[in-house]
């Protein structure tokens, strides 16, 4: 057991960093030490957590400036004399201490048109090939810790973009539906125009911080950008669809913004 110096954000958005000296044992993670702080020194410290196994996505914070799950950050990665600074995610409003209001993410999730199968098919008719299941499965690993949305500079450094940008988490959801073999809706236009794919400059921080190691940029965002290029910016694809060499566009999704022309 050794004594470590922790600096922890206390209060609301106008709060400050408070310094504590706290014991840490071999094999512990940052969340264990935060719990010891609660138990021994500051019982009113607000920390959101749940599974302590890196699977619920609740304990997202920034540790020494890096977005991480506190339950998956071992104390052994820090030097013995290193001060550990724990702050809430910068992109979201602070409710108190290390707990953020992440409702922005739920709002963006609701805006995405859901799975839209062919109305002629009933659920028992669906047959998916293993290759197609595997492609989707990577995106389904997401635990919704929102570290990717937190680190994305589009909204982290420019809060005014929040209205027009859904963040990597939900652009990945759009990509997942776009790649679904049984989905019939066309989300390419709304991906660009309403969910803000054009704001993404593919600097890959979302991929860097993902605790599930999902290749968000390479397997979701860039493929989605290429699909948008097919739909909006490629004159040959447009010509091909007009003369019948390429398939006609699938219908746009119903009831979404200016693309609600499928009734």
């Amino acid at each position: 057991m050794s004594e470590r110096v922790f600096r922890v954000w206390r209060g609301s958005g106008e709060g400050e960093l408070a310094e504590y000296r706290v014991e840490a044992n071999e094999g512990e993670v940052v969340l264990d030490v935060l719990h010891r702080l609660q138990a021994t020194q500051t019982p009113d410290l607000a920390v959101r957590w749940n599974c302590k196994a890196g699977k619920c996505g609740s304990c997202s914070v920034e540790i020494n400036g890096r977005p991480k799950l506190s339950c998956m950050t071992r104390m052994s990665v820090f030097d013995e004399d290193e001060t550990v600074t724990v702050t809430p995610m910068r992109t979201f409003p602070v409710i108190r201490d290390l707990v953020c209001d992440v409702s922005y993410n739920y709002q963006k999730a609701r805006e995405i048109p859901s799975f839209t199968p062919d109305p002629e098919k009933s659920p028992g008719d669906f047959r998916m090939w293993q290759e197609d299941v595997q492609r989707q499965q990577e995106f389904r690993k997401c635990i919704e810790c929102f570290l990717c949305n937190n680190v994305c500079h589009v909204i982290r450094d420019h809060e005014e973009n929040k209205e027009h940008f859904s963040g990597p988490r939900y652009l990945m959801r759009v990509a997942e539906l776009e790649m679904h073999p049984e989905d019939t809706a066309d989300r390419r236009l709304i991906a660009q125009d309403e969910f803000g794919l054009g704001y993404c400059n593919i600097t890959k921080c979302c991929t860097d911080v993902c605790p599930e190691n999902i290749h968000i940029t390479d397997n979701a965002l860039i493929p989605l950008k290429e699909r948008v290029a097919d739909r909006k910016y490629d004159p040959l694809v447009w010509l091909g669809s007009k003369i019948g060499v390429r398939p006609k566009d699938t219908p746009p999704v119903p009831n979404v913004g200016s693309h609600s022309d499928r009734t």
Partner: protein
Amino acid sequence: MASTDSTQTGGGRAHIPRRTLRTDRWWVGPLLTTLGLATFVVYATLRVFQQDHYWVPEYHYLTPFYSPCVAQQCAPEAALFGRLPVEFPPLVPYALVSLPILLLFRLTCYYYRKAYYRSIWLSPPACAVREPHRAYTGETRPLMRLQNGHRYFFYAAALISLVNTWDMLIAFFHGTGGGFGVGLGNIIMLVNVVMLWTYTLSCHSCRHVFGGRLRSFGTHPVRYWMWSRISTLNNRHMLYAWLSLATLMITDAYIALIASGTIEDLRILN
């Protein structure tokens, strides 16, 4: 123990004045990237405007920076597609057809975009480090929409890679006194062409065109196979981007040194 009023709740995002609380050397990556890109840009600029030391007639070595050579001043044997009937004025590259395409291919490449957005435009300089710009529009403005044309530059770059491949192959059949021969120059050109192809074929647009755009892989097994192979290459796209820059410079420098008479080609066979 510190004494802090933690009863206060709400009040927006955490107001942390420091640009970042990261304690690691996050600036090393952007710095090295900038130095690497600057080295290539300076070297390539000097060489393409030099209009000299690009061709070794004895062994049929043509540097990739001058291929295909289309100026009136090009050596006839170096001009694979013939020469234009006009002399290029000073500072106009002899490979006027290919160089702009290759430049745009790399400028619009998804990896290089990440590299220069981070390292040069500082948007952001590193993850969780605040960028210096007041406003941000990403790739939504008309000029930035040119990035969506990456696939066309990929098609053109693949054709130019074919030309580079021809340049490399034909040099094997110009040994000392004619016939098959192998020199260090041949080996360097071969490695360069392999790197150019790995970079070109690992491109994200290539991955999309060959299979990524499909909704179902199961009904397109051949295209799924191609997509899988390209995906394997694509995992190392950044590595190939840098290696191909390095091999381009090394190939050009080696041929320039032989063409200028500074060194002799090391012959291995004939």
